[in-house]
């Protein structure tokens, strides 16, 4: 089991699903690709929306919008597939956009707000940002834009996203996030 010390720097990829932003361990992401044609698979599990052919490799597709209960819009120019690992398997997570990679200290990750579900794995394992006016950390060698812009981002548990009832927890998280961070602030990230 990895033992992270609080001062350890971790790199998280920030991406957008619907109007909210989430974070994933960058080491979990193998690559990020523009949308590929999705083949439907009959009788697949409920969380799987089909498969894609990525250079000869068949990868199941999980639509992050549908899993979190937000509107499933047609693929746009910003839509991306995050090719991510869960255990020894790979999946393609459809997201509405990839924002940035943040390098933050482990200690700036806060516990996620308590949500509706208690049984089974939690969908959100922590939170980052969302506190306006937090001073930049002492070490200047890395940026902490997630905190400076005041945008609350929840750390997404990819394995739990495959569970059937993720949408309820996500809706509760959005309500809580809406209460905490107020109106969305202009983003300074590059697309």
């Amino acid at each position, binding site marked *: *089991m*990895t033992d*992270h010390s*609080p001062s350890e720097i*971790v790199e998280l990829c920030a991406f957008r699903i619907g109007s909210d932003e989430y974070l994933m*361990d960058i*080491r*979990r992401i193998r690559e990020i690709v523009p949308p590929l044609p999705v083949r439907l*698979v009959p009788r*697949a*599990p409920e*969380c*799987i929306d089909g*498969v894609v*052919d990525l*250079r*000869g*490799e*068949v990868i*199941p597709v999980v639509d992050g919008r549908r899993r979190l209960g937000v509107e499933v819009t047609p693929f746009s120019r910003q839509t991306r597939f995050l090719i991510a*690992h*869960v*255990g*020894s*398997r790979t*999946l393609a997570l459809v997201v509405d956009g990839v924002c940035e990679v943040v390098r933050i200290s*482990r*200690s700036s*990750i*806060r*516990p*996620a*707000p*308590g949500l509706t579900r*208690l*049984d*089974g*794995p*939690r969908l959100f*394992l*922590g939170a980052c940002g969302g506190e306006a006016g937090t001073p930049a950390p002492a070490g200047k060698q890395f940026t902490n834009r997630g905190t400076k812009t005041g945008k609350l981002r929840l*750390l997404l*548990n990819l*394995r*739990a996203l*495959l*569970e059937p009832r993720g949408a309820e927890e996500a809706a509760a998280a959005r309500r809580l996030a809406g209460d905490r961070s107020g109106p969305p602030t202009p983003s300074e990230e590059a697309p």
Partner: protein
Amino acid sequence: MASEENQKKAQAPQQQFSPAEGDGFTIVVRGDSGPTPAAPLAVPANPLEEFFYREDEPGSPLLELGVAAHPTRVTGARDEARREYLAFLLGSEEYGIEIGNVREIVKPPTITEVPRAAPHILGVVTVRGEVIAVIDPRQRLKLPPGAPTNLARVIVCDVGEGSCGLLVDMVSEVIRLPPSAIEPRPQSMNAVDTEYMAGIGRDGDRMIILLDADLLLRRRKSAEESLT
């Protein structure tokens, strides 16, 4: 947030974990974790352990689709279909190698020269902790030397013996070519000049000289070099 957790504690039988690190995470778990199809395992004392990727972490049975069980069949279909090549520039000419050989593309780090190395090896670089030899394709293709550019990249390739880097002027794109767009290498030219060519690809007006990655990156000398 603490009060929410306390309310839930009062409602149901529970266990509470506090990690020894003291970073403030507490979770409340019911004695009987609910009917989820995910692999049941002891809930980690620190929920962030599940967030950070480990190669040996538990997977999800929901991803066991069985569609990846026939890789040979998939490959067979692709042989007849378009192949993907990574196109790059050397000087003003465009070249390509099969994308299956390419592991990653990096901006060239400082190249450490290696004395008494073969002439086509520029030196070694370190990519994510791994020491990789960097090859100058111009030397192999008998092209004049070029000036360094900001767009120069090292294409890190896997050719079975390990990883090698290829220093190029610029990486263009990944291009798909159907077999009909690829012409075999010209027979009339001197065999030495076309030794590393796998063919010539045409995409509209573009002509892309397709290179055989195995020959280009192998550490042993080519037949011609062995004679000198």
